[in-house]
């Protein structure tokens, strides 16, 4: 059944058609120019044709991003809103719909996630619509010590918020299908109690007014299945993360508005900081296990794209609404943490190749899958492009062209190289990469409050220039990382599900060295090869060579918190959220500091539950609240009980088993030897 409005769909295809036309036209023109440059006076050989094919594959994405960013810039300049997405009537009417705010957690820092949840809860209450929202901590935590800490933190939070605070805690016994399974489990248990759910990550923060605005948008658009509020990256201190935050804040809006421009009601889901119509999601977004083994088979890792595609297939619209504001997340603190996350995302996106051909999907959804895949596959394509370019240059040096043919001729066959054309092509590619950034800077400079809270004109320009140099130097190492991830995934290697590092910690030199030694050696090799072929070629490749050769110090220095703090003191790479922290962030920090100052108690979760009557009672309440049955009388349970009785060390799995076992939980006090 079609729930989407037909109002915007004609315009959406018009916009997409215009973008496609501009993309193909500029790629065609650039390819023709490169073909002329490569052909010279001797025509195109096999290597040159291969190079052209790779160029087309890479340039298409650059051109598309460029034109989408231009569209985004215009949309932001004229402050255009999405046609087809009805704005709710103004006013503070009492919300009649019910929304569950769900935070999926997995072995996280307990104080941090509960501080975030409390800050969001209070912010919603302050917005005057607390009655319309319930809050769920959905734990997939496997560490039994953290599990018990979460239960006690949940109870402490309920006590702090006062009687009637609707904050609930549920821990899943088996974390099947990871985060998507966690959300699906919530929906099966309680989904029908709510009209909407807002999905949060462990590092998500959202202002209450934003959550209310999202619920109102859903109320005003009964055909909307999902509204995504693009999160702003905040709260980090390392140089790497602060530069990412700065780039996201300066250039991000242009790209987000560009995406919203062409996606319209067939948008995408970013996995968190989005409001979802529960009925639509439950009907259409149950994810099957893909046949075969991981990384391409098994549970769907990057579930968000697939869920958005299924919602659209089910007739619901999916909107990206950049102007919502009040939506925040954190970025990985260091380059290596970033690369680790990229590995997981790479695997997830490549797995989408199994899904993008599914029956009945909207072409725009298929394009989202392709975009995700290309965001990783483009790295090995660029690598091949560079490798092939170097090969062609080497071949031409090793086997110089004969100036005089076999037949006697008066004039030599001078090799023709159209330097002016090559230069104009280079300038075009550079322009496509730089202009969206410049437009982002321009928008910030035109917005007085944002400009002032980002350090002022001079610092924004200086910061942008440094960030440009930094990201240019970073790009070759990222290209190699991503090429490796693509190759590993294609060869069947999988990456596990780890907890993301959310602390500002530096990378030790040996770790940086180990991670980048290959990059450095490749940089030295490419540099020497280019020098041997032609010093001019070396100059052309110098940013790439420098990025690779300097990969170790770049990774190490950028991971340092003191550099980030030093630059922050000098108001460099400043974002408005650092100048004046959003209320929800300020409150989350206050609560976190308060929680950290409190005594921690017994760290061993099982011991605590068995020795502390209050912890025991809270644990049993958490089990009873979600009606968790006792485990079967298995051999594993028997062994775990015996080990506990004999004071033998228990594995985390055994501890978790005992934490479900009524016999153990009722047999207090704990045996002295345990």
């Amino acid at each position, binding site marked *: 059944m079609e729930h989407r409005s037909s109002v915007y769909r004609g315009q959406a295809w018009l916009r997409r058609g215009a973008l496609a036309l501009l993309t193909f036209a500029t790629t065609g023109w650039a390819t023709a120019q490169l073909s002329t440059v490569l052909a010279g006076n001797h025509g195109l050989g096999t290597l040159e044709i291969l190079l052209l094919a790779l160029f087309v594959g890479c340039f298409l994405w650059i051109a598309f991003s460029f034109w989408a960013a231009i569209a985004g810039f215009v949309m932001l300049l004229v402050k255009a809103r999405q046609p087809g997405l009805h704005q709710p009537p103004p006013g503070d009417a009492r919300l009649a719909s019910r929304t569950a705010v769900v935070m999926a957690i997995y072995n996280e820092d307990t104080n941090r996630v509960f501080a975030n949840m409390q800050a969001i809860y209070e912010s919603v209450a302050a917005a005057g619509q607390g009655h319309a929202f*319930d809050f769920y901590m959905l734990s997939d935590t496997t560490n039994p010590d953290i599990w018990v800490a979460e239960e006690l933190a949940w109870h402490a939070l309920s006590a702090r918020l006062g009687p009637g605070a609707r904050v609930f805690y549920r821990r899943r016994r088996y974390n099947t299908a990871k985060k998507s399974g966690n959300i699906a489990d919530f929906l099966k*248990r309680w*989904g029908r109690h709510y009209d909407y759910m807002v999905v949060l990550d462990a590092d998500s923060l959202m202002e209450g007014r934003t959550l209310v605005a999202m619920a109102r948008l859903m109320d005003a658009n009964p055909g909307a299945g999902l509204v995504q509020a693009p999160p702003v990256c905040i709260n980090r201190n390392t140089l790497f993360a602060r530069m990412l935050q700065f780039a996201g804040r300066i250039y991000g809006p242009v790209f987000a508005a560009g995406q919203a421009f062409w996606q319209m009601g067939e948008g995408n889901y970013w996995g968190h900081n989005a409001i979802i119509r529960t009925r639509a999601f439950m009907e259409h977004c149950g994810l099957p296990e893909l046949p075969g083994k991981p990384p391409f088979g098994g549970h769907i890792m990057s579930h968000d794209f697939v869920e958005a595609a299924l919602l659209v297939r089910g007739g619901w619209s999916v909107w990206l609404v950049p102007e919502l504001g009040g939506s925040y997340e954190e970025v990985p603190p260091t380059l290596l943490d970033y690369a680790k996350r990229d590995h997981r995302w790479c695997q997830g996106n490549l797995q989408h190749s199994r899904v993008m051909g599914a029956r009945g999907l909207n072409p725009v959804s298929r394009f989202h899958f392709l975009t995700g895949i290309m965001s990783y596959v483009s790295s090995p394509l660029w690598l091949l492009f560079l490798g092939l370019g170097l090969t062609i240059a080497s071949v031409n040096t090793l086997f110089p062209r004969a100036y005089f043919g076999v037949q006697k001729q008066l004039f030599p066959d001078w090799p023709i190289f159209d330097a002016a054309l090559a230069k104009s092509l280079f300038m075009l590619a550079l322009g496509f990469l730089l202009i969206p950034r410049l437009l982002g800077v321009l928008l910030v400079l035109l917005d007085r409050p944002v400009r002032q809270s980002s350090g002022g004109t001079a610092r924004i320009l200086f910061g942008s220039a440094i960030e440009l140099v930094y990201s240019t130097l970073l790009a070759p190492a990222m290209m190699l990382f991503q090429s490796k991830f693509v190759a590993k995934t294609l060869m069947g290697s999988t990456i596990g599900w780890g907890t993301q590092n959310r602390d500002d910690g530096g990378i030790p030199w040996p770790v940086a060295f180990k991670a980048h030694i290959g990059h450095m050696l490749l940089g030295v090799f490419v540099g020497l090869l280019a020098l041997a072929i032609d010093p001019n070629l070396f100059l052309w490749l110098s940013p790439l060579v420098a990025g690779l050769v300097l990969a170790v110090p770049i990774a190490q220095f950028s991971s340092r918190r003191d550099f980030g703090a030093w630059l922050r003191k000098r108001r460099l790479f400043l974002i408005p959220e650092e100048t004046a922290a959003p209320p929800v962030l300020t409150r989350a920090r206050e609560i976190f500091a308060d929680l950290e100052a409190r005594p921690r108690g017994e760290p061993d979760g099982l011991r605590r539950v068995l020795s502390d009557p209050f912890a025991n009672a809270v644990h049993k309440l958490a089990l009873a609240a979600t009606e968790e049955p006792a485990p079967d009388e298995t051999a594993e349970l028997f062994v775990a009980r015996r080990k506990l009785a004999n004071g033998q060390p228990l594995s985390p799995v055994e501890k978790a088993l005992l934490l479900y076992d009524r016999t153990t939980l009722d047999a207090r006090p704990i045996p002295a030897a345990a």
Partner: protein
Amino acid sequence: MKELVRRLGRLAPSGAAGDIDAAAGRWFADLLGRPESEAARALAAGRVAWLMAQAGRRWPLTLLSDTPPLAVTEALRRGLPALPPPLLGDPMPAAELERRRLPSFAARPLRARTA
């Protein structure tokens, strides 16, 4: 203690652990204004609220009494954490992600003839 044993004997004559839990659950459900069908959850929640309110120390003879003082009821309800709504156990059918079938141009295999 004797009084508690007497009350338990009246509420759960068998003395079995399950029966005692059920009786205590009913008592807490009544005290906390919950339906008797939620006795198990009420017992778990009531136990937490009881400990939070330090009711054992403040009102030592109240547990399982027929007429608990109003102050106990109020203190327990104040310390009661909210419990999630009832479980629904709804299905969430797995979406069909079969690829689109490409038209088959291959000739149909010949069926082997058997005598």
